[in-house]
């Protein structure tokens, strides 16, 4: 089997560590975790989110500052999945306290997932969670379509029904206005006027990774 990913083996082994789970038995594990490992998905997303300079560290800091509501400690604001045991529709209805569930769809997949945007305090956390949820799928898809593709661009539909790139507005505004999220194939997202055009982002990601 042709291996398009440099370092795919190590990538796959680390998969479990970086997976969004409910934690090893008896322990509550937080979904913010060590990020040193290069992964196509977040890198491209970081590139999309960053300003014109496009440096990963800077964009990280910028995003954290935008999440003005909390300090950097990951455990503080993050909530457990499914606890307390209330149906999502009920939690959503009590928006002021509670939650904001939006559907996440991936182009080309029948899989839908729901995330509670209130569970995250920054784009970075949200994207990490999405990556964890869909990563396995993107690996498989990768083998089916052998390109250099880190193809998936996160987009969202806002209150007005417009499709926007995730990351274009400050986090808090995003949380208020996001109705649903769609991970679009890069080529389709071109029409959404990102700050960094997706084609370039893909190439930058490929270059960085092979470097």
């Amino acid at each position, binding site marked *: 089997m042709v291996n398009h990913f440099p370092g795919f083996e190590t990538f796959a082994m680390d998969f479990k560590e970086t997976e969004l789970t409910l934690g090893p038995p008896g322990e509550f594990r937080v979904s913010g975790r060590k990020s040193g490992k290069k992964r196509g998905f977040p890198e491209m997303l970081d590139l999309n989110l960053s300003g014109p300079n496009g440096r990963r560290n800077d964009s990280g800091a910028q995003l954290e500052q935008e999440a003005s509501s909390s300090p950097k400690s990951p455990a503080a604001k993050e909530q*457990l999945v*499914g606890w*307390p*045991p209330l149906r999502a529709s*009920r939690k959503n209805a009590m928006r*002021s306290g509670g939650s904001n569930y939006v559907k996440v769809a991936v182009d080309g997949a029948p899989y839908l997932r*729901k995330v509670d945007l209130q569970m995250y305090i920054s784009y970075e956390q949200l994207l990490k969670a999405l990556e964890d949820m869909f990563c396995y799928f993107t690996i498989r898809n990768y083998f089916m379509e052998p390109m250099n593709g880190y193809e998936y661009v996160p987009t969202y539909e806002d209150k007005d029904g417009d499709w926007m790139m995730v990351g274009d507005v400050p986090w808090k505004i995003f949380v208020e206005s996001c109705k649903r999220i769609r991970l679009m194939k890069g080529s389709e997202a071109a029409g959404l006027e990102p700050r960094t055009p997706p084609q370039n982002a893909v190439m930058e990601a490929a270059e960085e990774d092979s470097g």
Partner: protein
Amino acid sequence: MGENRAEVPGCGGDSQPPCPDQVLENVLENVLRFLTSRRDRNAVSLVCKSWYLAEALTRSELFIGNCYAVSARRATERFRRVNSVVLKGKPRFADFSLMPLIWGAHFTPWLTAFAAAYPWLEKIHLKRMSITDDDLAQISHSFPHFKELTLVCCDGFGTSGLAILASKCRQLRVLDLIEDEVEDDDVVDWLSCFPDNGTCLESLSFDCVELPINFDALERLVARSPNLKQLRLNQFVSIGQLYRLIVRAPQLTHLGTGSFSPPESWVPGEQEPDYRAAFAACSSLVYLSGFREIVPDYLPAIYPVCGNLTSLNFSYANLNAEELKAVVCHCYKLQTLWVLDTVRDEGLEAVATTCKDLTELRVFPIDAREDSEGFVSEVGLIAIAEGCRKLQSILYFCQRMTNAAVIAMSEKCHDLVVFRLCIMGRHRPDHLTNEPMDEGFGAIVMNCKKLTRLAVSGLLTDRAFGYIGKYGNSVRTLSIAFAGDSDMALKYVLEGCSNLQKLEIRDSPFGDSALRAGLHHYYNMRFLWMSSCKITLEGSREISKALPQLVVEVFRSGLAAVRDEDEFVDTLYMYRSLEGPRNDAPTHVRIL
């Protein structure tokens, strides 16, 4: 011999008396028609073969508690004269995002079988199943006498399916959509699709359909549905629109009031109709719900009906204690009350003062987070215990609780059947004594002899489960989360609770050894769910090998399948089944 055969239910000719066997069989069939309880029917079917056959022929309602426990073919072959089906699919923890969104519980294969076997089918009731728009269309085409559709916590369908159902099922009496996830991709004006010349509708519930509706169509629909008794609206109906509906339908017994607020376009000071008079005209109202975006100023409109109310659902209404008091002081016949904790202990005290017939109470949190403030406590629970002695069912979300309060409830409310206490902060002890909540829950199982459903929370040691195992003989459904110290806890439960049927556990330190302790009992259960515990893949396999008629599913959060090299299993879901592993499991669900 032939012509008169129909008159003489005998095996002989018309001149011969019927043989005793035949008579007995006919008597039996006629008697069995009156037997409605499925438990009684199951018992009857075990007596002997002819009773089994007679029972099978006379069962008119088919109840399948787990859609994977038996196949549609097997069910339809045994029961030939069914006109009403109840089907349940996913386990309850699916409601809390603990299950992959794609898992199963598809209605389609059942529908196909029903369409062939029961063309006279009148009622379908589904809970936690996936039903598509095509399925809804299929129902409309396959069952000319179809009358009632109830969907609870279902998904997979949207308004286009509803439109087909509305237009084609001319005898539709009941369309109840309760807490479903309705697709919003392609919105169709389904309310306009009901027949123009009138409907047989008796009950229409769409409070969970979070989509705008064509109000004029709804108004005309209500006007041409003279049998309508139950109407539950969604939050896109303003109070002004509600008024227009209830003046046309004063015969309503059950009303879901929609938003209970004026539309956004409303200007304060604008002339408003006499809401109070409209409600006063609804002399048959016994049930009120909705209040989805309530403006409390309008609450006095419902005072005229409070004296008749037996059920009041304020669980979406942000009311404070005063506002609740003003309503509840009139509700002396109230049996069921759902509220938000915004009413505080004080509000619950008011309930306890007036609602002496209360049998069911649910208190939901307005802020459903672990570290939220929580507005009710042991004070409210004690008040209810002392005031509402007929209480049978309670669901109580809080952040602070004491053993003393729970013990008090166990001593005062002897009729308790369902006790569900959710202390939202994990591992919280009795906030006054700092002790675990063992004694409180222990008292519940000891004192409440009718208890069949229990949900525990707070700091709990193995001791609590010792009590449950020892005294909880009547418990059929048990929910455990973040509790217990060791395998012993689960062992106590599995060895002691001989009537246990549904056990759902999350984030508790129970491992394979505890799992083995239930081998003698799993065939008597509907299911066991364990997530984020200490179960290993090997341990799960052992169970699967030991009990061949148990389907053992393992899966993890996310879309990846459980691999052989995984040591622990995220989620174990197992259930008895006559059919073996299902063939519709997605790749990320592994069946051992």
